[in-house]
């Protein structure tokens, strides 16, 4: 096998000498890696092409714009609009991020900076367990435990205190955007918390020590030295969580109510993109219905790509702002 000699040659001084040792081994290795790397592009391309091919019927029949911005979903009359599902996906994911990010960052800070040593282990273990629970279990727990609690305690309280906002008006049934958003928040919490924790561990000790030496309290040191340094990483962690929230199917469909409507109230039932695909695909027989469901898949794909691009921009902006602040 030529590979071991390759690696030792790689440490050697002259790159030319290395090329002499085994050009074929290098080339084969290079080609192999390229194939493996390129396969991910091929897979993504095939998914897009297949989804696009199946969707085409629906676009021809419905018109792309009317499909994207239509809000009626009527399989009997072959009328399909994606807006209620896009809206439901975005609203529930937003709730999840708004709830999960502060909690996760607090949790990560507790584990890395503040918490007593004896507690860090069990809390860290609990986060890992949370990450390993299958989503259908979250859905069941949501339906049987969280939804009644929301209906009887949380939603009446929110309506009494914040009822002047359209977000918290209307009948309280427990199921709906709020329930789905909260379930998602719990599900993405371990992802965000563990990545944030890793990021916090990379903060140089000298920064913290410097802040403390200058007379900062613990909280001030975290606020002025730790968090700014970790900010790009935390944004990245949040987007990782958001990616999971957007695609989550089972838990969401069990608590969102599965009604393709658009409501301002978070108490109202809604629907999400992955949920409707999972629900209707198995028994969709008409070509247009199948096409519309595949198009929803494309829309979800598009949202994920957009968010990833946005993440790149955001992380770059945040790290640039940080280096300027440091200068």
């Amino acid at each position, binding site marked *: 096998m030529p590979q071991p000699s390759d690696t030792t040659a790689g440490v050697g001084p002259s790159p030319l000498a290395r090329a002499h040792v085994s050009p074929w081994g290098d080339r084969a290795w290079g080609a192999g890696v390229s194939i493996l790397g390129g396969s991910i592009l091929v897979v993504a391309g095939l998914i897009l092409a297949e989804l696009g091919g199946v969707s085409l019927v629906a676009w021809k029949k419905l018109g792309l714009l009317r499909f994207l911005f239509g809000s009626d979903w*009527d*399989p009997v009359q072959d009328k399909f609009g994606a807006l209620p599902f896009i809206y439901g996906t975005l609203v529930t994911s937003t709730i999840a991020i708004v709830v999960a990010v502060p909690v996760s960052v607090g949790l990560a800070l507790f584990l890395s900076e503040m918490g007593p040593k004896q507690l860090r282990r069990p809390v860290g273990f609990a986060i890992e367990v949370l990450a390993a629970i299958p989503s259908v279990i979250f859905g069941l727990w949501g339906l049987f435990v969280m939804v009644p609690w929301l209906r009887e305690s949380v939603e009446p309280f929110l309506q009494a205190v914040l009822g002047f906002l359209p977000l918290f008006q209307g009948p309280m049934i427990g*199921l709906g955007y709020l329930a789905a958003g909260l379930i998602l928040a719990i599900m993405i919490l371990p992802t965000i918390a563990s990545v944030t924790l890793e990021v916090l561990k990379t903060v140089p000790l000298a920064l913290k020590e410097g802040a403390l030496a200058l007379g900062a309290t613990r909280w001030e040191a975290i606020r002025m030295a730790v968090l700014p340094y970790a900010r790009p990483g935390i944004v990245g962690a949040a987007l990782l969580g958001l990616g999971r929230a957007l695609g989550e199917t089972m838990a969401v469909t069990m608590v969102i109510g*599965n009604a393709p409507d658009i409501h301002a109230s978070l108490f109202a039932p809604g629907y999400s993109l992955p949920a409707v695909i999972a*629900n209707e695909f198995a028994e969709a027989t008409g070509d247009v219905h199948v096409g519309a469901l595949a198009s929803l898949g494309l829309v979800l794909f598009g949202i994920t790509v957009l968010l990833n691009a946005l993440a790149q921009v955001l992380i770059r902006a945040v790290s640039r702002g940080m280096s300027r602040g440091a200068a």
Partner: protein
Amino acid sequence: MKKFALSALLLVAGTASAGPILVTGAGATFPFPLYSKWFAEYNKAFPDIRFNYQSIGSGGGIQQFTNGTVDFGATDAPMNPDEMAKAADAVHVPTVLGAVVVTYNAPFAGLKLTPDLLAAIYLGKVSKWSDPALAKVNPGIKFPDMPITVVRRSDGSGTTYVFTDYLAKVSSEWKEKVGTGKSVSWPAGLGGKGNEGVTGLIKQTPGSIGYVELAYANQNKLPLTTLQNRDGNFVAPSLESTSAAAAGVQMPADYRVSLTNAAGATAYPIASFTYLLIHKDMADQAKGEAIVKFLWWAIHDGQKLAAPLDYAPLPKSVVSMVEKTVQGLQVQGKPVTLAAAQ
């Protein structure tokens, strides 16, 4: 290496000889518990015939049957004209009946509904239990002042097809606004995935009403609503009243008929057949014979296994019709001799 060659040899030998015959099928989930019982019992009686049935849903069953990837299909709703055009040689063989029942979560028992009321509730027009129209039909019940939360299936389903088919028959407004389908545009309510999802939502939501299959409702002891049938009688859902629905319908030769809102004094109004889809003339001698003989067994001995699993057996009039249909099936252009099975 030797082992591989040996097993390859065995494989070839297995397909060539008249060893165990494997018949594959796919389709409806609703009759799956009964079909697995049937296949197991039949395999005990005829050990060299094995059935492999995948309950992937009626839509998938029709598709796989049409594409020829399985030997037989199974569906709850009969194939529509478009689907029939793609599989011209398909024969529908009704096996048992199912019913869709209306269940609820409210502080009273013995709810009765008229067709108009049920449609009005699902249209969102009767949205409170204190509605006077409900009290008129149920003089014995003291209704609470509670909103009615409508629950229905979120996944595409034959159960939804039968339920909406019934509503479209009894309410012109439903027919116009919503129509009949496995997934429809619901005017009101919450969606649950599967019978268990609907039941979960109903149990979790006070004041809710929803529909599930009779078998599922019986096994889970859910409260059942008594419905007024076409003859004006209030009929509780049961296996007998479900079978009665099939007896009161003018049966076409291909059985593609809706049994909802059927005539008959004791007929329960939301009933339906579930079918196996068979090719009229089958190409594979061994498999074809096995299928035809199994069907003969299913409409005779198999019917006795239906009731214990909460499926309604076919009424006698229908069995004698299906006998002729099964006798009309062919393998390589020739009918199968069924004397032994009889």
